[in-house]
């Protein structure tokens, strides 16, 4: 296993000195100045303001129908009869944005929910990796950081009858929720493991054709749900998170079989947690290439090829970046990687 880089080295690489203008804008919206400085260097001032405004607006949840238990049209009718107004997501069949909700019940407490007829996602973006990883695929999938189980249960549905999901996580109370969702949705193709994903290459002899690595991240794309994230992660904290993400990505790649595909996923728009992490691992290993997504679900943005003093590979244009102000979703990224034989 590759040794992770030293924290000082990461800190040096990701250091940001905010300008006076960034500081003013950060103060106005309540952010740490380094965050806004980054947004301006990526998006320019006007688009940064649009991004900050988008983070001020709450997003409506998304219902993903469990078509193994119910016809999705029937589910939509039943929820609409309860007073929910749904809008179908064009690129994910059986998924609906809840655009209006009654005072009671909440979308996560209906009888239909308890019967396992659907899963509630905070946003549609989290549907993307499962669709891409399972497209035309039969076989087992390792979900290395799986709890609370939105993506694991989605993939278990998508490959039902063709494979199993090995869903691993380290945090026990989140695993409890994951097992609850698996039972509630009556899924019979999920194995749940309790391990540190960084140790999986030593703990499991099997290798997988598909690995989902939704790493524990700063959550910088989910500020609309948790405004505390505007100030929670200092640049020093970010370096610690980045180092762990590098360790996790190395471990995830070790779990791949020859020609297997790994989806590296974060709900952070920070280039440090995405482009920097993947570039760093690619440079260190020399055996990783980017894979073009098998589907273009909608007009998403691509990863950055330059950021401040960093120059990233041109093939990063194949990776997916969702911006709240452009796509009306959380900030989210997905990049498909393959380990060359």
């Amino acid at each position, binding site marked *: 296993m590759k040794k992770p880089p030293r924290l000082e080295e990461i800190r040096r690489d990701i250091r940001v000195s905010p300008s006076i203008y960034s500081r003013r804008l950060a103060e106005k919206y309540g952010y740490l100045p380094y965050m806004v400085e980054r947004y301006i260097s990526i998006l320019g001032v006007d688009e940064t303001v649009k991004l900050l405004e988008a983070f001020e607006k709450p997003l409506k949840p998304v219902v993903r129908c469990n078509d193994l238990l119910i016809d999705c049209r029937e589910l939509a009718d039943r929820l609409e009869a309860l007073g929910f107004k749904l809008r179908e997501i064009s690129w994910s069949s059986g998924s609906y944005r809840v655009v209006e909700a009654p005072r009671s019940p909440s979308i996560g407490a209906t009888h239909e929910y308890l019967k396992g007829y659907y899963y509630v996602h905070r946003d549609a973006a989290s549907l993307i990796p499962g669709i891409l990883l399972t497209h035309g695929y039969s076989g087992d999938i390792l979900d290395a950081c799986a709890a609370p189980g939105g993506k694991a249960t989605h993939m278990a549905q998508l490959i039902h009858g063709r494979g199993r999901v090995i869903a691993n996580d380290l945090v*026990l109370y989140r695993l409890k929720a994951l097992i609850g969702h698996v039972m509630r949705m009556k899924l019979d193709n*999920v194995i749940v493991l309790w*391990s540190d994903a960084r140790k999986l290459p030593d703990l499991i002899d099997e290798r997988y054709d598909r690995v989902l690595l939704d790493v524990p991240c700063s959550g910088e794309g989910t500020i609309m749900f948790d405004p505390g994230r505007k100030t929670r992660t200092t640049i020093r904290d970010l370096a610690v998170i980045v180092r762990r993400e590098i360790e996790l990505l190395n471990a995830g790649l070790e779990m791949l079989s020859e020609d297997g595909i790994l989806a590296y996923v974060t709900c952070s728009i920070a280039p440090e947690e995405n482009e920097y992490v993947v570039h760093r691992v690619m440079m260190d290993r020399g055996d990783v290439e980017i894979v073009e997504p098998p589907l273009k679900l909608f007009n998403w943005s691509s990863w950055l090829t330059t950021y401040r003093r960093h120059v990233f590979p041109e093939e990063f244009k194949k990776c997916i970046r969702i911006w709240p102000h452009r796509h009306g979703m959380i900030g989210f990224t997905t990049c498909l990687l393959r380990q060359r034989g």
Partner: protein
Amino acid sequence: MPIEAEGIVMRIRLKYGVLGRGRTRRLYMYIRDKLGYNPDELFKPPLYYTCFNDKCIIHKGSGKYFRATKLYEDGWIGVIMDKHVYPSPIIYERIYHERGFRAAIIVGDRGVRAFLYGNDILPESIIREYPPLDSGVAVVDHSDHRVIGVALRVKHEGSYYYRNIYDLGMFLRVWG
């Protein structure tokens, strides 16, 4: 997946392993004698359990997956409540789909709502009873014939009601 906010500390006492012979035998006997179904067609022993604090479920595998810790595998078979074992809704529904209702009560809207909040079922909520009723019975929602939990018939002042053993509302109250 965002890192959880700091300051949330939840203590969980975890237990897992092979389901004991006595409990396995009781689950087999219930399915064979009360539901009239051959349990070997549903699962093969050994069965496994996993407990988060005092909430225990029965399923098809815990222990080791290579050298990693496995907590759950491939299908919910039952629950352990107060040292008794009861099948999961999946098991009941599979049997009812093939053989029709046994050891079941069909419940109307008000009863379903109350039951899913963890309450008992009163006689006026029961639309129909399918014997045998002398041990755990599946509680079935009349609207779609889905099993929403298990109850136990209890005599009280000359009439019967059904005491809630477990219900799907536990996915909010316990497993959420």
